[in-house]
Structure formats: C-alpha cells, structure tokens
C-alpha cells in the first residue's frame, strides 16, 4: 500500500468518525434505531492488513467512540469481535459469488467488488457488531426481545447509511476493467 492508500485510509477514519460523533450520535429513529456508521472505516481497511493490527485499530477506534457515549469498552468489544470475524465474512463473500472476485482487490467496497458482495460482507459484520454492542449494553436477560429489536432496527439503519456513504464519498481507487 502506497502513501496514497494510507492517505485514503486516514481520510476514511476522520470522515466516518466525525460523522459518527457529531451527527449520527444525535439521530435515533423510532426510539430503537441507532446508527453506528463509523464501522465503515473498519470495513474499508485494506484486506492485507494483518489481523492483529486490524483488531488493535478496531479496539482504539471503538474506545474513542465509546468516550463520546460515556460507555468505555462496549464499542471497543464490538469492534474487536467484528475484525476477528472479518476472515469468515470474506469467505462467505467469495463462496457466494463467482471465483476470483476478490483477486487483486485490496479495499473491499462497492466500487471494487460491486453492490451484492459488499452488501453480504457489510451486513454480516455490522450485525455481529450490533449484536455484541446492544447485548453488552443491556447486560440483562429480561430485555432480550427489546434488545433484539434494537439490533435488527439499528443494523438495517447502519447498513443503509454505510452503503449510501459508499456512493457519496468513495475514496477507493477504481478497479481496472
């Protein structure tokens, strides 16, 4: 990855984190639907990043976002799990689409692999993230269905915003056709 790639990654992180803490933190739909758009920065990490590095980055980013919510550890735990599960999500993407799709792809985004594979990849990881997040936050079994409702509603909300933001500000280089 050249310096251009690193700049793109930095812009990703700044952009999505700022969007999260300044805008999305204040938006709640129907009382149950929260948006955690900052996970997009982790989704767009280069695929050749060593997993231990990506988990460390996820931990730091999660903890930073946590400070704004005054809930240290919750977002961090969810983000680390998300990055731990990333290889499994990649396997799901490559097995559900034509072979060779991920070849030569460094950043997995709508422009590099197309809409459907990205949707699979993003939804698996976003739901893993949200499930951890809301169940750790609730920490009580008697809120199970309420929490599940939050997971599904927020997961769809985040997924929608992440996909839209892909089209709005795309920082990944176009794949050569």
């Amino acid at each position: 990855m050249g310096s251009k790639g690193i700049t793109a990654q930095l812009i990703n992180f700044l952009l999505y984190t700022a969007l999260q803490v300044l805008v999305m933190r204040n938006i709640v739909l129907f009382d149950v639907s929260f948006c955690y758009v900052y996970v997009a920065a982790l989704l767009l990490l280069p695929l050749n990043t060593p997993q231990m590095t990506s988990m460390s980055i996820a931990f730091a980013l999660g903890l930073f976002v946590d400070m704004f919510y005054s809930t240290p550890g919750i977002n961090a735990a969810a983000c680390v799990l998300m990055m731990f599960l990333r290889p499994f999500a990649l396997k799901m993407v490559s097995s559900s689409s034509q072979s060779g799709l991920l070849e030569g792809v460094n950043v997995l985004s709508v422009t590099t692999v197309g809409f459907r594979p990205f949707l699979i990849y993003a939804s698996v990881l976003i739901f893993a993230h949200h499930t951890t997040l809301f169940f750790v936050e609730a920490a009580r079994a008697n809120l199970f269905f309420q929490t599940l409702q939050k997971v599904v509603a927020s997961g769809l909300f985040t997924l929608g915003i992440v996909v839209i933001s892909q089209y709005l500000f795309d920082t990944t280089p176009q794949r050569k056709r």
Partner: protein
Amino acid sequence: MRKLLELLYRFRTFFFFLFLEGIAIFMVIRFNSYQNSAFLNSSNALVGAILETGDNVSDYFVLKERNQGLSGDFAQLEEEYKRLQSQHEELSRSYSRLLSMTDSLGGMDSTLIAPTVPTDTFVSLTYIPAKVISNSVYHNQNFITLNKGANDSLAPNMGIICPQGVVGKIVAVSDNYATVRSVLHPKTIISAQISSSKVIGSVKWKEREDDKVLGQLLYIPRHVSVQVGDTVITSGYNAVYPEGTPIGIIEEVHLKDDQTFHDITINFSTDFNSLYYVYAVDHKRKQEKEELEKATQDGL
C-alpha cells in the same frame, strides 16, 4: 514446552482477540461499578472540546425554541418574585405592628423579637449554572455532558437539577467538562417523598413510553394511601438534591393482596429531550453531614 509455544503461536490471533475482548469487558464491568475515571468518558478534555464545538453549531438551529423556553422560565421567576415580594411586605407590616405594640407595652428590648436564626442556615446550597453540550435519552445507560468542570468547582456526586426537576448526578469531572449520569440510567436511585403525605421512598427509572419518561416509586408501604396525581419530590436525606425538588407526578398505583409495598408508576416532570441549562447543586454542608453520619455508624 515447545509444543505449547507452537500452539500459542499458531493461535496467536485468537489469543490476541481474547486479550483485547478481555480488556474491553473489564472496562465495561469496572466502569459500571466505579464510574469515576474522567479519562475514559465524555468529560475527557479532547472529547469535551469536540462535543462543545458540535453543540455550538447545532445551537443555531434551535435558538427559537431555547428562547421560548428561557422566556417561560423568566415569566415563572417573575411570578415567584412578585409572590415573595407581597409576602415580604406583609411580613414587614406585621413586624412593624409588633414593634409598635412592644413600644406601647413600655419599651421592651426589641432584640427579644429580632430574628435569631443564623442567616447562613439558608445559604448552605450553591447553584452553579452549566450548559448541556451532549445528551442522550434513548440508550439503556444515558449520560449528559456539561461545559463546566473542576475549574468551576463542580465535583463528582453533585446533584444536577433544572427548573422542571431532577436531572442526574455528576460521575466524573475534568478541568472544563463534567459527565452526568442521567436519571435515565439503571444505577440512578433518588431518595424521594410524596409531597402530600411526606412518606419516604426511592425513585428509579423504568422505561420510556412514547413521549413520557416513566419511573417507579419504590418502598411505599401498603398502609399509606397514595393518590394518582400526587407530586413526588426529593427528600432531604441523600444530600445530593435540595429537598423538595420536583421529580414527577404519580401516574398509576397498583396494590396486590400479597404485596408489602405499592406498585407506583410516576411520570418524570423533567423534559429530558430538551435539556439546555441545568444547575449543579453544591451542598456546602454535605461533607460535614456525611462525616457525622459515618461517625455515628462507626460508633454503633
């Protein structure tokens, strides 16, 4: 030994994952039980500065509502002022009548009827105004961030109130920012009393229901009669909130045959959605009170 090291190396990613998750979960648990590290929450200097900047921008969009709210508060204060003024006039009239009566009785020493209560009894509370720069109401654990901190003599465990009622309690402060645990947090418990019958209980947040924020009033024994519509106010026992601060109105009362306590739902009077200016309550005698209580307990 070599085999073990090989195993560790082979699954190093997994162990690293467990390690990071362990730290995160430890933070969740530890923070919930102590909640006093100013570094890891919204009163952190950097986080507070970012929140304040964002709040400054969003302020412009709600200026009109803020103005209306403030002028409402102002009208209320003016009314209160007029009421107190007329009360004061009445009292001074009766005082001068009393004085003239003592004069006519033959020059009794007027210091006998002068006020003897030391004035500082009434000023043991100080209110420090602060602005809300971040607020949440929809989470399971809700926190509020204020734009004042240790430099403005805010400290952990101070109560936060607004003109409508209780808001929460400070959990952490940095130099310029403070994090407040809102009433809408499962760990917040407020010592309360029913204003008509003076019976003491505890208020806890229960749930949100549409626009209303509902709470539970606990430990009201069954022999006490409780009416829907009674006001619930803070009792003076906890030394966090000033005595008599409104908490809410009783919305529902249930009493099953086998229950020792009433099952009471209250509707909080504070509008947590539109908090803007709040007041931190500095209880000057709080430390003294706590020390005395502790000494009494140790003595037993």
